């Protein structure tokens, strides 16, 4: 084992993975999503047991089961993934866990690679789960371990809330000695805690509130939150990466560094605010700290609404502190991304544009079909929405318009949350029929080529059961199912799309052609594996 005191340079994601290994996490499970993806990939590389689930809801449910069994489970996802997993989250807060359960929510302020910039600190309060927020990789490492300790001690799921900057920035850290938090043993039945019928859920809710009250007391005295003494004229309350920006923007100020942002250490904040002349809560995104501190009667200043949007940086923090008017929106940065040269999605969108289709799109590389030269996308809402939104349009548009509607969804996204949309299509077919195009490039390309059930391989690329889209679609009751390589004969592909649209029936076209980049990467991995196995 390497020297635990060794200095390491790691991203926040890698730090979480390292900490999970160092505190004996039994199972890591999640769904790929920038900026969270690298956590489980690193955990697996380090020797941890990690898996991709079909979506975040299933991932959290698997994590809950593992923690019910007494294990330490790590569940990872991007911010919007927690929307999908919200259903189990809100109730596992009631049930609690005998093992330990930590959920990483990787938020994306500024939407570097996301469809919204929701602030998941609100989820911690809404669901009633403790939340810790690291501001660099050292804290990501320390707080991952602390989150597991807290979860096991209080038998409660814990949210580790990160952001793009803490996930992807590399900073220096030192590890601590490995520990084990919990070990699965003989199953302990506890139906009153875990079967949430109303009669058992009512006392469970009261138990949850009592746990949170006890945790708040612990947080008030915790060294995780601390005061940096400075000039009493200005007191800044901050957490996460905003704390780092603020320390740099106002080195002379007094600081209350908050690490436990739910439940808030109210007594600590009250005392800090009383000791400074001007107290400001400095935060990225929603006015979470400001509103919650004010609700407890603590007089804190917030930022101007104009600073709600995007990421903060040192310059913007200076602006907030100086009560400067709204910052000018940053100019678009350089060249926008585009579909790769030779990408099979290019043929698909060229065809849809030429046939003047109304395209309900989905989340993945292929969302870039909205940009010139194609501009062949009319909507993109959330994972799986292409199908439902397409059906809704088909139901209400005049028939001639309705016939132009096509839903486009990628392979990984289809498995994530397209299947129920397809069931809806078979169950409530629009009068003009519908066409769903599954653009199957055999990988989760957008997030960096992760496997999914449709690739027949698991997280570490070893083989597993392979989901057949064509068999699945047929079993749902859709008879017109075509598989075609859209790049082999563009004319044939175009004719097939037209034929399906003209038929007035329900149709699924699986446009199957591997992602160029994934294929290249796979060949490299296979070469490496082959050369490894040849070495004595």
């Amino acid at each position, binding site marked *: 084992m390497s020297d635990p005191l060794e*200095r390491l*340079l790691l991203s926040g994601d890698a730090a979480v993975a390292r900490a999970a290994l160092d505190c004996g996490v039994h199972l890591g499970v999640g769904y790929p999503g*920038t*900026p969270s993806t690298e956590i489980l990939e690193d955990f697996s590389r380090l020797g941890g047991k990690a898996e991709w689930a079909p979506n975040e809801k299933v991932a959290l449910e698997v994590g809950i089961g593992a923690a019910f069994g007494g294990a330490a489970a790590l569940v990872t996802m991007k911010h919007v993934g927690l929307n999908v997993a919200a259903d189990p989250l809100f109730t596992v807060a009631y049930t609690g866990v005998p093992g330990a359960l930590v959920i990483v929510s990787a938020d994306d302020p500024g939407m*570097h*690679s996301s469809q919204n910039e929701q602030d998941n600190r609100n989820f911690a309060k809404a669901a009633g789960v403790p939340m810790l927020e690291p501001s*660099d990789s050292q804290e990501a490492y320390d707080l991952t371990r602390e989150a597991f300790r807290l979860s096991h001690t209080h038998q409660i799921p814990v949210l580790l809330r990160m952001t*793009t*900057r803490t996930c*992807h*920035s*590399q*900073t*220096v850290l030192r590890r601590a000695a490995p520990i084990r938090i919990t070990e699965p043993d003989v199953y302990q039945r506890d139906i009153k805690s875990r079967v949430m019928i109303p009669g058992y859920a009512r006392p469970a809710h009261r138990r949850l509130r009592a746990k949170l009250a006890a945790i708040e007391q612990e947080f008030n005295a915790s060294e995780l939150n601390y005061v940096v003494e*400075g*000039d009493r004229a200005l007191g800044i309350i901050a957490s996460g*990466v905003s704390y*780092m*920006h603020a*320390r*740099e923007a106002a*080195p*002379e100020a007094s600081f209350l560094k908050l690490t436990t942002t739910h439940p808030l250490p109210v007594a600590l904040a009250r005392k800090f605010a009383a000791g400074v002349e001007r107290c400001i809560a400095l935060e990225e995104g929603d006015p979470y700290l400001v509103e919650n501190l004010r609700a407890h009667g603590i007089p804190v200043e917030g930022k101007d609404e104009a600073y709600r949007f995007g990421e903060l*940086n*040192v*310059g913007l923090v200076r602006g907030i502190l100086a009560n400067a008017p709204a910052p000018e929106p940053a100019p678009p*940065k*350089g*060249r*926008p*991304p*585009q*579909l*790769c040269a030779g990408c099979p999605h290019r043929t698909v969108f060229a065809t849809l544009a030429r046939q003047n289709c109304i395209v309900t799109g989905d989340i993945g*590389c292929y969302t*870039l079909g909205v940009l010139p030269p194609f501009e062949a996308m009319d909507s993109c809402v959330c994972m799986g929405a292409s199908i439902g939104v397409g059906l809704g349009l088909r139901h209400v548009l005049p028939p001639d318009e309705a016939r132009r509607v096509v839903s486009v969804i990628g392979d990984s996204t289809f498995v994530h949350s397209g299947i129920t949309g397809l069931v809806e299509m078979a169950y409530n077919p629009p009068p003009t029929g519908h066409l769903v195009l599954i653009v199957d490039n055999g990988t989760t390309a*957008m*997030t*960096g080529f992760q496997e999914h059930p449709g690739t027949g391989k698991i997280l570490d690329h070893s083989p597993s059961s392979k989901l057949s889209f064509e068999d699945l679609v047929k079993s749902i009751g859709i008879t017109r199912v075509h598989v075609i390589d859209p790049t082999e004969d563009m004319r044939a592909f175009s004719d097939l799309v037209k034929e399906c649209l003209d038929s007035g029936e329900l149709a699924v076209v699986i446009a199957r052609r591997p992602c160029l980049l994934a294929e290249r990467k796979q060949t490299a991995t296979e070469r490496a594996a082959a050369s490894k196995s040849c070495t004595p």
Partner: protein
Amino acid sequence: MHTMKPVTNVIIAGVGGQGVVKASDILTEAVFRAGFDVKKSEIHGMSQRGGSVASDIRFGEQVLSPMVPPGEADFILVMSEDEAQAVESQLKEGGTLLTPESLPGYIDEDADEDEDEETRLRLRCMNVALLGGLSTLLDIPDSCWREALCANLPKRAWEFNEKVFQLGRELVDK
């Protein structure tokens, strides 16, 4: 009291595929090995798909924010001239902008990259050549640069990259 120790701010910019992230990995590792506190920040994800990529590297005795504050870059490296415009405004007064033009003679203007293997390779290793140029402006021991290059590149690429790194050192127009 409260005086901040100086932090060196570097931005490396280009388009996906030009080795921006690789160059920032090498620089970050070199300053890490030299014993500095260092933070490096960049955006992965959608920006991979042919879009602009920029990486912020900050080092010194203690680094707080992982992002270079607007207009405070001491050094900016850009992998191609046409990317310079997007990041130039981040350069502080008296800061240094290094572009392929800062290495006169590195690329033989008359050579055809499709014909000439040396030119093709040199273009591909522009990131490391520019790091060589930058290395003359930073107080980082040679051994740290060498270790950082080797740690971040496959063995078969070491020799050529050490060569272009040295070329960058010699040719840089300060």
